[in-house]
């Protein structure tokens, strides 16, 4: 079950980072609707990713019988997972409150955090895959 639920937040967070990056890279003078569209997609995917993370974390805790760290590949998985989970919740909360009222500087910091979270989740996913599929 964890193997299934965990892919939703991973994919959604990565998609969110890409949508937000696209909105940042769209030229200022291009159609405003395109930028707004990317930002709306980034907003929806980060919120859905955060909601999906509850299912992934819950099923993972049940699977590992409540182990928060463990050893070997499980420890490596958790060392990336917990910071990623905390950052995902923090970013989604920030985005929900700020929505479209933020400054350009604030959005740049958010975007950097979003990309870091996507990288942390990818690393957690890699070690999770090593744990389940490759021994």
């Amino acid at each position: 079950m964890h193997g299934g639920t965990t892919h939703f937040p991973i994919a959604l967070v990565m998609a969110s980072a890409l949508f937000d990056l696209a909105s940042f890279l769209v030229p200022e003078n291009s159609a405003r609707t395109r930028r707004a569209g990317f930002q709306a997609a980034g907003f929806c995917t980060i919120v859905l990713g955060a909601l999906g993370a509850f299912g992934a974390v819950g099923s993972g805790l049940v699977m590992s019988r409540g182990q928060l760290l463990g050893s070997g590949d499980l420890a490596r998985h958790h060392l990336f997972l917990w910071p990623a989970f905390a950052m995902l919740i923090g970013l989604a909360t920030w985005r929900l409150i700020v929505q479209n009222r933020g400054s350009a500087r604030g959005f740049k910091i958010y975007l950097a955090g979003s990309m870091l979270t996507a990288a942390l989740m990818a690393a957690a996913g890699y070690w999770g895959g090593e744990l389940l599929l490759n021994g």
Partner: protein
Amino acid sequence: MRIEAKAALFGTAAALVLLGVTFGLSPFLQPSIAAASKQRSTNIASAAASPALEGEAKRGRSLFDRNCAHCHGDDARGDEGPNLHDLTKTDARITRIVKEGIKGEMPRFGAKLNDADVEALIAYLRTLKS
């Protein structure tokens, strides 16, 4: 206060609260904390009495910690996977299980551990006596 700063504070608080709730709930998912604690103290006592590992067995212990302990337990006395003390299986059988896994029960390690690694692992497993 600007909305972004407020949102950052709320975001940090939400992340910390949810991490706290998650970490606080996790002990309730553990099968039996008291039993595990008792088992741990027994293991510490038996580990102190056992001779120090050398050579292959020492390397096998390191491989075990990184690859097997999360299912078989740090002391190899079983957790999600079975107790590995006093194994009666042959080296060839253990090698096959480690490399090919057991469908639905244990992942295969053939792509991760080479023959020398599995030999070291078996050397460590042979040191595990009740």
